[in-house]
């Protein structure tokens, strides 16, 4: 598959899988307002994924559509970050996963907003407006819970300890990213790391959270090698299209 298509699929699969994950909170949020907040975030993310899938489908030589791309590929064809497929566990855990992703995503989309591919930069400019809100929401909650009760602090600290190992993948370039970087199509995500870390530390310091040191980073999602959680999420995501192929609403 062409590197450009892979890169765009990677960009689309992140919000698709994370959006599907957060949607699991629908009806289960700790309080109504947060249930709504998470569900709204999920909607934004799935909307962002749709824009990218629609763009991919419109590229020359692509005989596919957004539904097929989102719901009928095999697990090893999904190129999302491992972080996005990790289970929700508890509200604090979900918030930390969101915060780590949002902080990266904000920087990534700021870079994509300047992209020479006008279609891609158009999508980035549009969705950046929404990503800013996600970032504000998750960073406020990391502070509130981290600096909250003994119990909420413990939940947030546990989540950082557990999820930190997935953050190295943000900055490790996949094969298709390296290939495209030379053409100037892919952004150099490794350059975003210092700013990402500054932003994360600014929030964790306020929250009284410590960052794990010398963690071995887990990679592979961007190349289609996923954690055990991915199969379960795809089973649910793909159920209708697998049972009734090419069904439409």
């Amino acid at each position, binding site marked *: 598959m062409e590197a450009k298509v892979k890169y765009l699929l990677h960009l689309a699969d992140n919000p698709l899988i994370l*959006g599907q994950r957060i949607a699991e909170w629908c009806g289960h949020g700790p309080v109504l*307002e*947060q249930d*709504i*907040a998470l569900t*709204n975030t*999920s*909607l*934004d*993310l*799935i*909307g*962002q994924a*749709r*824009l990218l899938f629609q763009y991919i489908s419109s590229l020359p030589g692509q005989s596919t559509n957004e539904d097929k791309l989102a719901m009928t590929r095999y697990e090893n064809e999904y190129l999302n970050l491992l972080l996005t497929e990790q289970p929700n566990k508890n509200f604090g855990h979900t918030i930390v996963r969101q915060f780590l992703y949002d902080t990266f995503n904000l920087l990534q989309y700021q870079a994509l907003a300047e992209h020479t591919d*006008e279609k891609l*930069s*158009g*999508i980035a*400019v*549009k*969705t950046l*407006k*929404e990503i*800013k*809100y996600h970032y*504000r*929401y998750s960073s406020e909650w990391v502070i509130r819970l981290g600096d909250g009760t003994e119990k909420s602090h413990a939940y947030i600290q546990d989540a950082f300890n557990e999820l930190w190992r997935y953050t190295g993948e943000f900055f490790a370039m996949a094969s298709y990213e390296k290939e495209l970087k030379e053409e100037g199509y892919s952004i150099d995500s490794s350059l975003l790391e210092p700013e990402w870390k500054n932003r994360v530390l600014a929030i964790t310091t306020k929250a009284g959270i410590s960052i794990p040191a010398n963690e071995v980073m887990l990679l592979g999602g961007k190349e289609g090698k996923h954690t055990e959680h991915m199969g379960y999420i795809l089973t649910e995501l793909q159920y209708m299209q697998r049972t009734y192929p090419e069904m439409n*609403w």
Partner: protein
Amino acid sequence: MEKNQVHIIRKKIAGLLHDVPDPEIPIISIVDLGMVIDIRPENGHWRIDLAPTYSGCPAIDVIPLLVKASLHEAGFGDAHIEMEISPPWSTDWISDLGNQKLLDYGIAPPNGKAADQEYEGKPRNCPQCGSTDTELISNYGGTPCKASYKCLTCLEPFEYFKCF
């Protein structure tokens, strides 16, 4: 098509679109919401460019269908509808009439211009009693475009259409 003719038909289509409501907030039309960007003849049919509001708004698939149905009834069955995301829709595009309709409906309209502030701003006053003494409940509401507030004077909850 003659220039004069184009002008007349464009006005007619714009009039039809004025009657297409936003499915989530039916009091306001898609024109007053600022979603209709362009109406023009193209390759022998009419083309309408619409700006989606939020990427994931559930109304995003319904609105083109409503537009198509309304145009079909008026004899523009071959009209072509495109969703145009660039430049992105902003609450700054909502008309004065649209903002007034929101207020009458009980939704506090966006206060100020989105371009002038980093986030959504705060409601000017309670749409029920007009008090300026209001408090944020949540940055999110029943639809992506709204935040939840309560009035500390009349104690009623209300929604604020966020600057975006």
